[in-house]
């Protein structure tokens, strides 16, 4: 089965092509077609996973582009990490295809939606099985395209347009770093294949400084894609897309691709101490930074978006601290519970047609399945004991402890506390309260089903931590170790998580602590947080402004310097023309004189030079 692994991404691609070429003809069938083909991919993935128990590594490559003696290749690389990612992607993607059937039920551009979704699935599957960085980069960009198209799906909305554009551009900034990094890497090692790069690093063919530079450049790519500070601003805006899209792309898969990139090129990062430090510091900062913003946002999806940013920061933090397994583990569990949270949020929006949590004010409680699944998701992300999130977070704390990063550990713990506060704020505000609005629609089974399945995974995924470590160790070797925390740390983590829940309970449910009063006392802090630290405005006023300024500067150069030069040239030519036309007197004798002068000149030349040359 594993030798057919390269077929996996092709089915969604077929789906995309059929749907995009058939236009609106397929109508409802489009959804079923997409689900069918994604389902085939998922089954194939399962088959591949079964094979992976015995074969730890499988690579198939074809020549793709010949450049003189260099040959760039395309193909598929299956190792435990890739296999895991394949599973996560195809599984979540399948569930979300099914969910979308209900969510997008009445949209008349449904076939476009499913086409884009299939395109994204194709790209994401291709991404996680790339045997080399070039193919990785290509799918990386295609994933961005899928995300862009889906964010801008409601294209008549001005905000969707802006969000889509922003997402594409911000991630592209990261991609530029990635591109530079991979080209540098290519000239250092003469190859882009992951395996050969790792060999080169093992043989210490690269200068340490160069490794650090390349690792940082690759990390810039990951920062862009995974919404890490300072390129995170697109991710919350990306919530303009349909909610299932947010679940798939901006929670479970694409944004995790940055983490995956770091994981996939982990030997490179391990070879450079500085790169690891930068990864962990950026991760930690993003985690706490986004969590604080998440505390005060009022938009259901935005809170989840900031929570995603924060959790991705966690993963980076883990990877930076040497917690390879912890990072990948958290990536997996996060994929399940965050997809679940988004799907549940989608149900709320679907049913109530509202996503402002203060306006919803508890109306979510009429949706029983949604309420319970959302609660499970919330508990998981808060690190409630025995749910998946608690295990993966604990692994991260352990890794930090092992690495001796006590400062970062403190940050991580505090972030965990904030996480449970804002997540339960969300939960209490949406599902507990007066609840005056009755749902306009009932949530169909095809939406509830995936939510329940994901809820199950969100509960149980945490128990497979050590299996995951063994699994990953099969492919990668030494660094794939799951760190275990000492008891006091487990206790502390649980305490922090519960503390957050309790605090949220008192503030938002019992209202014993008046949040309005807090708002008054810390009004400036509140404003800063509510406006996301004014990062967008900062970019607006610095980068965008200076870009525009350069543009206008060049515009004026163009207008005055170049055009003047142009006018000068054409003026000169015109002047020559006018002068020349004066020779054109119409008088034969003048012409004759000119001819004679020419003759005289030629004769003179011959006489003086004695011939040609």
């Amino acid at each position, binding site marked *: 089965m594993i030798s057919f692994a390269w077929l996996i991404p092709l089915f969604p691609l077929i789906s995309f092509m059929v749907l995009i070429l058939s*236009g609106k003809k397929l109508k409802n069938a489009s959804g079923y077609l997409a689900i069918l083909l994604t389902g085939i991919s998922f089954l194939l993935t399962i088959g591949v996973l079964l094979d992976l128990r015995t074969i730890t590594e499988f690579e198939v490559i074809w*020549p*793709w*582009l*010949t*450049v*003189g*003696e*260099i040959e760039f290749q395309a193909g598929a690389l299956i190792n435990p990490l890739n296999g895991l990612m394949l599973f996560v992607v195809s599984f979540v993607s399948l569930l979300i295809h099914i969910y979308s059937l209900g969510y997008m039920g009445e949209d008349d551009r449904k076939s*476009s939606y499913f086409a884009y979704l299939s395109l994204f699935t194709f790209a994401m599957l291709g991404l996680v099985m790339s045997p080399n960085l*070039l193919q990785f*980069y*290509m*799918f990386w*960009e*295609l994933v961005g*395209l899928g995300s862009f198209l889906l964010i*801008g799906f409601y*294209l*008549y*909305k*001005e905000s*969707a*347009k802006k969000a*889509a*554009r922003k997402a*594409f*551009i911000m991630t*592209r*900034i990261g991609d*530029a770093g990635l*591109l*530079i990094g991979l*080209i*540098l890497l*290519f*000239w250092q090692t003469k190859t882009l294949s992951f395996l050969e790069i790792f060999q080169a690093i093992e043989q210490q063919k690269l200068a340490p400084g160069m490794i650090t530079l390349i690792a940082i450049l690759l990390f810039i790519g990951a920062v862009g894609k995974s919404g890490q500070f300072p390129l995170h601003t697109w991710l919350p805006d990306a919530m303009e897309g349909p909610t299932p899209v947010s679940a798939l792309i901006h929670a479970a898969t694409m944004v995790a691709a940055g983490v995956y990139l770091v994981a996939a090129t982990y030997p490179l990062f391990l070879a450079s101490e500085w790169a690891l430090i930068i990864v962990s510091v950026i991760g930690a900062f993003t985690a706490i930074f986004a969590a604080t913003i998440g505390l005060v946002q009022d938009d259901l999806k935005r809170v989840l978006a900031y929570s995603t940013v924060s959790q991705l920061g966690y993963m980076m933090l883990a990877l930076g601290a040497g917690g390879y397994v912890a990072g990948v583990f958290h990536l997996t569990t996060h994929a399940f519970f965050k997809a679940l949270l988004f799907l549940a949020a989608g149900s709320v929006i679907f049913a109530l047609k509202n996503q402002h949590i203060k306006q919803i004010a508890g109306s979510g409680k009429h949706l029983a399945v949604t309420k319970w699944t959302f609660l499970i998701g919330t508990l998981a992300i808060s690190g409630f004991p025995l749910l998946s999130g608690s295990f993966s977070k604990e692994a991260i704390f352990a890794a930090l402890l092992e690495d001796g990063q006590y400062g970062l550990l403190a940050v991580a713990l505090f972030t965990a506390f904030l996480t449970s506060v804002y997540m339960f704020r969300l939960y209490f505000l949406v599902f507990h309260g007066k609840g005056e609005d009755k749902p306009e629609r009932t949530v169909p089974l095809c939406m509830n089903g995936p939510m329940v399945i994901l809820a199950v995974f969100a509960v149980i995924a945490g128990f497979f931590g050590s299996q995951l470590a063994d699994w990953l160790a099969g492919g990668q070797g030494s660094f794939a170790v799951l760190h275990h925390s000492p008891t006091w740390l487990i206790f502390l983590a649980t305490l922090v998580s519960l503390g957050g829940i309790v605090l949220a309970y008192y503030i938002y449910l019992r209202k014993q602590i008046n949040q309005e009063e807090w708002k008054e006392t810390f009004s400036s802090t509140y404003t800063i947080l509510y406006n996301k630290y004014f990062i967008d405005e900062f970019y607006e006023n610095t980068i965008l402004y200076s*870009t*525009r300024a*350069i*543009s*206008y500067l*060049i*515009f004026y150069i*163009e207008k005055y*310097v*170049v*055009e003047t*030069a*142009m006018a000068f*040239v*054409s003026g000169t*030519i015109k002047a020559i023309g006018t002068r020349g036309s004066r020779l054109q007197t119409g008088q034969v004798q003048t012409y004759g004189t000119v001819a004679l002068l020419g003759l005289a000149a030629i004769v003179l030349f011959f006489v003086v030079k004695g011939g*040609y*040359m």
Partner: protein
Amino acid sequence: MGLLSLLLFSPMIGLLLISILTKNSDHKSIHRYAVLGGIIPLVISWVAYIQFQGHNQLAERVSWFSYQGGQQSFVIDYELALNGFRLALILLTTLIVMLAILASVKQITKNPRLFYQWLFVLELGILGVFASDNMFLFFFFFELTLIPMFFLIGKWGHVEREEAAYKYVIYNGLGSAVLLIAIVAVFAQAGTTNFEAVQAYMAQRDDMAFQVGVLIAFLVAFGVKLPIIPLHSWMVSVHVYAPPAVVMIHAGVLLKIGAYGLLQFGSGMFPDAFPVFAVTIAVLGLINLLYGAFLALIQDDLRKVFAYASVSHMGIILLGIAGMNTAGYQGAIFQTISHGLISALLFYLVGILILRTGTTNLKKLGGMWTAAPVLSGLFLTGALAGLGLPGMSGFVSEFMAFVGVFEQLPLFGAVGVIGIILTVVYFLRAILNMTFGDPRKNKYEKMADIGKGELFPAGVLVAFIILIGVYPDSLSQLLQITLETLVTGMGG
């Protein structure tokens, strides 16, 4: 008459077909004959492609004239020869001319007979430029492209068409003058204009100063054509004021003569002296890339955006050439072909847009997607191809060009990558402003989507763009031998 001559002069058949028609014959039959005339070179060029695959070379040579001067003999022959690069450009030419004719069917209503006559002369000239194997023929056909373009712009263009046509002719005329001087200088030294013979002569003479001097002249001459900043303003006005069908050819093929010339004349004839210019070309490339990109950011006219996008893309060609290695050259060549296809696609769509709305002002357009989803989708596809999305030809060429330039000049490459970010910004800004957004803002709410018949040329272009993007070896296999000669000539 060999296959190459047949190919070269095949546009004459179309020209004759059109000329047989009287002035009063109805436009439909003129268009029909023009399409027929466009198909003939297309078919022959593909036959040549198949032939070329068999032998990997295709050449013709007829002695023309020679004379003695001093101890040296001076020879000018009628020499045609193909290599992979030229063949690729010829295939591109015949394809794009064909599609331009299809585009003209609806867009040209004023005296189509004369229009097509000029168009076929133009095609003849372009084919000649790419097929000729010596500088003399090259120059002859190079000049031959000048005149038809002048009339095509001046007579069938928009608004400031005559101004644009004069700008075109003045700039290119000056460029040709410089080119002629350089060619004559080389001819007087080497006694031949054949590319290979000149290369052999220069290698044996080893006169660096002379070579550098001539190369500067070539750089200027082809810099006008490419265009290199600050010699670009003619090109912008041609993009804006020429009829879109003509711009398809202009941006798609004619600008490529500059890139082709730089490679063929620069590295093809002066392999020893050319690397001296690596940094110069890299700097020029960067300037082009960023200058074009920054200007494209703030334009309000879609055609101007695309024009500056072309300027910017030419920067990538220059960067690739500056790499002075296989990857860079291949990137430059890929970019030539790829940009040809992409800009042809974009201007084809612009033509359709003008038919529907009569404007390309971005401030007047908006929310088009609701009314015309397919047209908008194609615009977006073109823009994505232009901004170098993987899976389309633009990415492969950009990637290789950057790989090439990174070997020796990594800093230039790194700065150039910034240009790629800007590319995204300006393309998305233009396309999204036009297609996305509130449909109620769209003054042309009832505009028709692209028709079934109009879909074909766009489809063909998209297919080629994706083919090269998904499987670039289809093109790069064709180029390997050419590249080898280009690069090995440089001593590795």
